[in-house]
């Protein structure tokens, strides 16, 4: 991957990037102007240090290579079950987690590898989980669809569409009652906004002004069903109005745009002003899961989005602003590749769980033959 030519913007063709929702002003202007006050510099460049920006790029790259590694391991029969890859959506995960601390919580989805890595997970333990090993984050009990990293504030992916949204609201209630000063970011897909849990959750978060950031990663499809066919509103962020919270739609392939929207929402949440809804418009390059035949979309559509690669775009931005050199990027690529290789090796060498421990952790206090 080269970064030299990749500075194009995807605004023109992408459906709805950068359009503001009708729900209010979710993007309070940044309070810090950053190093330069040049008005047309992207938010990220104005707002974050070069180290933070390079780290963000590294994380996006790590997500990409992790998922490619997982896909390859799946093909080799090292991973069973299924998995949902977020390749193409990396800017959304990393941009949304950029300002979160380890104490801040997230809830994630079936497409949760990126969120997990963005929140700081160790890719070795993630691979170990995918390989069903005892050293995995869930000790081999959960797999890809339940990947979690509680120490880093990731309360878990979820097998149930919309399952994590009310849990995030509950975590935000804890944060408020316990005065932790922390916030909760809840990721979910465009498909999830038609579940009752989405509506019930947004309403409760709003009436109690809970510190939660709802991030709808709109990748245009819930499995095979397009947003146009499943959802009555023109854009998901329009739904914010129904719950009296700010709603905004951003270009989810632009890390800076995602980070900017989240920055505002996080500040609002930390200030006790309540929740926000951010719609991050993006696209998954791969099929919904390993059994998808892509009958519901065209190759042209997929190719058009691959041309809007969020990683190349952000790398281009960093290069343009002198934050990352060609050699620096190449070094990053090598380091990430080595990290992935080491992670896979760790996972392969890890021991399998003991089948005698089948009922361990069903309850917190081990109860003999509850049956």
């Amino acid at each position: 991957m080269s970064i030299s030519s990749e500075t194009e913007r995807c605004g023109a063709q992408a459906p709805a990037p950068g359009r503001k929702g009708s729900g209010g002003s979710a993007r309070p202007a940044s309070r810090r102007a950053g190093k330069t006050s040049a008005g047309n510099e992207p938010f990220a460049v104005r707002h974050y240090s070069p180290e933070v920006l390079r780290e963000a790029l590294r994380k996006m790259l790590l997500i990409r290579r992790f998922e490619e590694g997982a896909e390859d391991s799946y093909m080799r029969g090292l991973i069973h079950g299924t998995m949902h890859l977020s390749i193409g959506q990396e800017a959304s995960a990393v941009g949304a987690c950029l300002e979160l601390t380890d104490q801040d919580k997230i809830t994630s989805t079936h497409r949760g590898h990126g969120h997990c890595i963005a929140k700081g997970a160790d890719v070795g333990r993630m691979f170990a989980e995918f390989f069903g090993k005892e050293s995995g984050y869930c000790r081999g009990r959960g797999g890809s669809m339940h990947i979690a990293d509680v120490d880093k504030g990731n309360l878990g992916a979820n097998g149930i569409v919309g399952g994590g949204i009310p849990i995030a609201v509950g975590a935000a209630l804890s944060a408020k009652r316990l005065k932790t000063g922390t916030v909760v970011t809840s990721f979910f897909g465009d498909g999830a906004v038609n579940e009752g849990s989405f509506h019930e959750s947004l309403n409760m978060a709003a009436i109690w002004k809970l510190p939660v950031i709802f991030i709808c990663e709109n990748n245009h499809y819930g499995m095979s069903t397009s947003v146009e066919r499943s959802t009555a509103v023109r854009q998901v962020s329009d739904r914010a109005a129904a719950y009296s919270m700010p709603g905004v739609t951003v270009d989810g392939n632009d890390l800076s745009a995602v980070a900017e929207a989240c920055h505002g929402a996080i500040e609002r949440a930390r200030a006790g002003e309540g929740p926000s809804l951010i719609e991050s418009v993006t696209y998954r390059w791969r099929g919904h899961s390993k059994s998808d035949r892509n009958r519901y979309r065209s190759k042209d559509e997929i190719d058009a989005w691959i041309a809007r690669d969020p990683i190349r775009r952000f790398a281009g931005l960093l290069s343009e602003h002198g934050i990352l050199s060609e050699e620096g990027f190449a070094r990053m690529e090598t380091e990430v590749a080595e990290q992935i290789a080491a992670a896979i090796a760790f996972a392969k060498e890890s021991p399998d769980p003991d089948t005698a421990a089948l009922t361990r952790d069903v309850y917190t206090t081990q109860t003999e033959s509850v049956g």
Partner: protein
Amino acid sequence: MTAPAAVLDSPLRELSYAEAIRDALAIALAEDERVVLMGEDIGVYGGAFQVSGDLVHRFGEERVIDTPISELGGAGMAVGAALTGLRPIYEFQFSDFATLAMEQIVNQAAKLRFMLGGAVSVPLVMRFPAGSGTGAAAQHSQSLEAWFGHVPGLKVVQAATPYDAKGLLLAALDDPDPVMLFEHKLLYKTKGPVPEGRYTVPIGKAEVCRTGSNVTIVATAIMVHRALEAAEVLAQEGIDAEVIDLRTVRPMDRETVVASVAKTSRLVVAYEGVRTLGIGAEVSASIVESEAFDYLDAPIVRLGGAEAPIPYNPELEKAAVPQVADILSAVRGVVRGTR
């Protein structure tokens, strides 16, 4: 196989379990304008397990309806449509998602007729891909049929073969009340003879799949295949096992089970749902509450799922539900008293 005379004449083809269900759906759509299919990704995607397949191309989007991801609303819509003249067949993408529609299934579909003093009925068919073995972990692998068997007003069916899958689905469609069909995911690709055209397999009738004299194994869904496999091994050891496919969880065919145990004097029940408070308890109760109790020569054994959610790791996953080896050792135990 107990095919009615009329279909015995029609050509038998080898179809997969999924194809047999699709065959039934196509017959239903073709013969009755009131039939609609509803569910998530059942249109161009063809269904998560490719059951509806090409039906949207044959019958159109008006009758093969992709719903948003809204199980409670979707199932409720199907209830309302059934109540007022349509014959909906609702596909849950995984049986686990019945949990999201519990309200409409349990409080509405099951009870409307009763609560309204018989003024209405809810001729609704619901299909549920169920069971473990696919590596999909705790929220996509459950066997919840016993839950629904606990609800008066619902009928709960589990087909083990392509033949039964088609016949039971068409019987469900003819039934004026809500019927839930639990389809084991590992069976979708298994093949078997399926006649062309319409036939039904009666709801509420178990089938004796293999006759035997030493022990009765009552099984459901995939456990029927494991029990038959075990029976072949046991035959080599001089143990003659009778295998009964329960086919319907509610209403349960107690007669067939009681008659078999009266003959064999021993009972093992094999099912995938969690062992406790499940199908095994109900089948066992049928025996201990009947005259067959007097014939029992050994304690009844229930082989069910572990007291745990289904784990992801493949070895743990296998250990969580009865396998052929578990059936073998249970049967040897009850027959030889060496448990």
